[in-house]
């Protein structure tokens, strides 16, 4: 039963339409970032306009934009990398040495991720105050901690899927435990690493509340800049700035889901669901 060409065309067009509908609000902001402030506030809204890069230039030349972008990149990449390293060690250990408390530990660690950030941030905030950790180090550690549960779950699932025979073949041939971990198992869980990396990166990249509360100098990221810098000197919302900054900021996650689409599902479900869409 071969569906006709027309039917297929209609079907695919419908799908594209759905995808475009979901993208439309983002597209509107994308357009706004190329409009002059007058065009943005025009009544009725302008669908055709003379594009300008002024907003983007002025957004980029605001004194804090570039440093905040760097902070975003630095904090998200480093914390997620650190979380992956820590989680990999733990995931390997929990997968290969059969501890009795494994399931309970996994549960505890996952449950921390289910708590509203505002709940945990109160005590952490106090602790950070006491230790003077409200700096890059502290925020980095915090994001690492928040990236650990998903990383651990994803990696544990993947490592469980790597047969122990691989380890054993290594051991019999004289490999050390560390060699087996990093040269034998690690390369085989690369999809898990990528999924965990992307998913947590997007989380840290987008995080606002902790950044706002706990951040000190050198830790402020773009969502923070968006939330506190959204007003221009006249006191009203500077939509040109909001639009151009949002557009610039959503670029990285968008590229990530384009290039690593097949890992999306794994990441969004902490590795409990495998497969691609």
């Amino acid at each position: 039963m071969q569906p006709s060409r027309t039917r297929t065309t209609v079907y695919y067009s419908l799908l594209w339409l759905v995808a475009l509908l979901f993208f439309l609000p983002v597209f509107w902001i994308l357009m706004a970032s190329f409009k002059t402030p007058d065009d943005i506030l025009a009544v009725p809204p302008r669908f055709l306009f003379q594009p300008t890069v002024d907003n983007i230039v002025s957004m980029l030349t605001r004194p804090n934009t570039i440093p905040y972008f760097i902070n975003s990149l630095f904090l998200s990449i480093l914390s997620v990398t650190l979380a992956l390293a820590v989680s990999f060690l733990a995931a390997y250990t929990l997968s290969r040495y059969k501890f009795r408390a494994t399931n309970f530990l996994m549960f505890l660690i996952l449950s921390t991720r289910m708590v509203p950030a505002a709940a945990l941030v109160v005590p952490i905030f106090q602790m950070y105050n006491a230790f003077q950790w409200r700096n890059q180090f502290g925020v980095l550690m915090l994001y690492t901690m928040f990236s650990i549960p998903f990383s651990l779950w994803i990696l544990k699932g993947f490592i469980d899927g790597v047969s122990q025979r691989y380890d054993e073949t290594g051991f019999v041939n004289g490999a050390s435990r560390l060699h087996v971990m990093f040269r034998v198992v690690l390369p085989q869980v690369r999809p898990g690493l990528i999924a965990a990396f992307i998913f947590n990166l997007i989380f840290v990249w987008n995080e606002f509340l902790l950044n706002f509360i706990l951040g000190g100098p050198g830790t402020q990221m773009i969502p923070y800049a968006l939330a506190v810098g959204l007003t221009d000197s006249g006191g009203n919302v500077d939509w040109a700035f909001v639009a151009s900054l949002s557009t610039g900021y959503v670029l990285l996650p968008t590229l990530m889901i384009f290039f690593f689409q097949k890992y999306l599902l794994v990441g969004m479900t902490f590795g409990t669901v495998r497969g691609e869409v």
Partner: protein
Amino acid sequence: MSETISSQPFSRRSLLKGMAALSAAAVAANALAACAPAGAPAAAPAAEGASPLQGTVGDEMRGKSLELSLAVIAGWPPSQLPIEMFPSFAAAVKEKYGYDVTVRKTEAPFAALFQRVAPTLAAKSQEFNLIVSDSQWLGALAEPGWIIKADDVYAVNPELDLEPFSSLVVNTYQVYPDGSGQRWGFPQMPDTQGLFIRKDLVEDPAEQAAFEAKYGTKLPSTYDEFAELTIQEYEPIFEFFNRPDQEFYGTAAQYSKEYDFFSCAYHPYVYATGGDIWDPATGNVVGMLNTDANAAQLEYFRSLTQYMPPGYSDFTIGSMIDLFTQGKVFSAFNWLAVGLFMISPELEGKVMAVPHPKFIFPDGEKKVIGAMGGQPWVINAFNDDDHMRVCIDFLKWWYQDDTQEEFVSKGGLPWSKKGVEAEGFEESKPYTRAFKYMLEEGRSRDFWHLPEYAELLAVQQEAYSAFASGQVNDPKRVLDYIAGRQQQILFDKGRTQTAPPAELLDLTLS
């Protein structure tokens, strides 16, 4: 502290005990920190013989290079001016004392700035050396000892202690607790409320004729005429210019839930009945705020929205600027400090700012008591000596005549007698005359400076916003709701001896 711990009947289970001990230790640590005497770090003996509170006196800063961290209010132009003008301060101290200083600006909108700053001070951090605080934060900052007492600075730098234009400045930006005479803040920029009016329209003969034809009275057109109008007398004017079919409206005021926007706009209506929002002497809110008179005024305040554009329940300072500069409203209630921003190039010469409309007070007198805006500087008590000196140097520079003049020319407002009464000030900007009028004794006032202000404010803003948006339509119930909860907050903190009636606490907004 140890007493507190040992006297507690903790559960026998060791786990709980451990937890309690842990938290008690934490509490103790925090409490110790909190109990540290105010200004202790700054009061450290001056090695060079001069207190850092004197600022730089000799060569002690020569050759040093440091960064001064300022916290300012985002989207609030007057607080951006110090940043803009900072280079001339840096040049001045470089020449005078030989040190290099740069500025780091951290900004956040009103409510968020407090949430951003207070925790750092609680942590005894000098993340922000000098802060543009809102006047209501004084108690919250002073009571835990987070900021330097201004009196201590004045004691060693009498030249900073300028003569204020009126007691309003001192009461609003400096003194805590109210009436104590203890000063904590240094006025940065005073502010009062006014009404911005489209001069071009009221001077338009066609409009004047049409108005007279419709109402039988002359359309006021001068400052003096407007300054004497009561809010009721304004209504026909708002109504006259309210032309929704042309997307043009009579007026606009702030009804937003954001920060204190609704409260500040509404409070003049409370004062107009001779009422108040609380009784500072007894700490009581119940019985003060939730009066029938206040409820009637609340209803009246909301009724003015009939002359306003849609969406008023979200109107903020910024909305006023937007609506006014885009020519969508005839008039707008706003802070005079943003006067410069209310007048876009297209509106140049077409705008007049007049004092807040008057009310007929119960004593029959026609007058106004507006809400005070504006902000003081406060100095972080945890600054190290060098930063402390720079802060003082900065204030000294800030209060110099030429600095103040430049500030005013850029749209800032003065507070000293000398500044406000300076020749030509009243005529210098379309809004300066109204400002001076409102800053006269008794014409404006601020509300709580209590440490609990954020909690108190959150309760009433939410309730007022519910009323503004029509979620609740009974004004008395709104005020009862606020009064009950605020009374509870003050009762919990020991500021009043009277617990709120239970029936008020059971009220909800939905």
